[in-house]
């Protein structure tokens, strides 16, 4: 199982700071699609992904116990 953390507006849209899902063996891109569908998120494509607090590209494969974080880049200044 994998813990998924949400930052900024993603947290508001999901309604929780974190959820637990089964993402082992899936790529980051697949997990993004899965989570976006499950929680009706529109903008997960442009979110950056950290696995165990390290930046992970879209083709990275998730291992059991990995903690996934989605961090949406924001533009305000």
């Amino acid at each position: 199982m994998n813990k998924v953390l949400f930052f900024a507006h993603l947290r508001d849209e999901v309604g929780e700071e974190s959820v637990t899902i089964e993402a082992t063996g899936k790529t980051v891109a697949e997990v993004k699609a899965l989570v976006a569908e499950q929680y009706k998120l529109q903008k997960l494509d442009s979110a950056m992904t950290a696995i165990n607090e390290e930046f992970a590209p879209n083709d990275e494969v998730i291992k059991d116990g990995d903690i996934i974080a989605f961090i949406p880049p924001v533009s305000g200044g």
Partner: protein
Amino acid sequence: MSERYSRQTLFPPIGKDGQERIRRKHVLIIGAGALGSGNAEVITRAGVGKLTIVDRDYVEASNLQRQQLYTEEDVAEKLPKAAAAEKRLKAINSEVEIRSMIGDATPEKLAELAGDVDLIIDSTDNFETRMAINDISQKFEIPWIYGACVASFGMSFTVVPGQTPCLNCLLKTIPIQGMTCDTAGIIGPAVQMVIAHQTAEALKILVEDWEAVRTSFVSFDLWRNQYSSMKMSRAKDPGCLSCGEHREYPYLNAENMTKTSVLCGRDTVQIRPPHSEGVDLSDMAGKLKALGYEVKGNPYLLSAEMETNRFVLFQDGRALIHGTKDIAQAKSLYNRLLG
């Protein structure tokens, strides 16, 4: 060395030598809003040699809650932010050569300004300009510091050409988000926290303490008490078109830029973003209504109106801004609402 910088030179990583280095440097700040105000004030007080600040907007009442250089008088006079910032910064430290530029930070303008610049501090409100800054940074080998905030959330990342990944490695494309300070709000402390991260990095770079430069991507939410530091050791993309082996500097290319045109006789500016991911119109309609806009729409477009602001937004991200022929003003409204 005057007494003025004594507390800063007492700090060993800066010292008298570091102060001399700061004094010889030229910092370019793009944007004079909340981040631009704060970044410029810290760098000016720190005694930089020369500071150039660029902004296309003017001071409004809704800026005063967080944009620390401006006063009610600036609002009453509708002063351009760059001009109001220059006036205040000169009053803070007359030893610093302050230059202001009122207008859009286009790739051409950035290339022109980049000549003798040692560091660029991002204080813009949109990713198109950030991607252009990112390409200029790689092309001219100038470090830059990304910073952004919305609501109680903020983030920062330092890009050092030849060493760190660049913004294009991380984002690959310009994200359209529909969440900006104008739609989701912003609190002063989130601004200040980003400024603290950006200016600490700036001082490290100005004194050339490269070892101390932060390599992680930091993000935080001051209201939710979250702080995250994302390691970036594997983020550099060798195929990146901005910093990789075969560079094209795509965001200096007109094709990747927002196209604007004044529609003759209609008092309207058209704005067309490049390679847009599209806009969720019903989501955007909700946000605009919350701001007090009167919104009408259909599946293809929405039209919104509040006081003198009138515009139509299409699903592909294209917008018609009515009631103006001023491209900078139209782009400013567009970026404030769509990021």
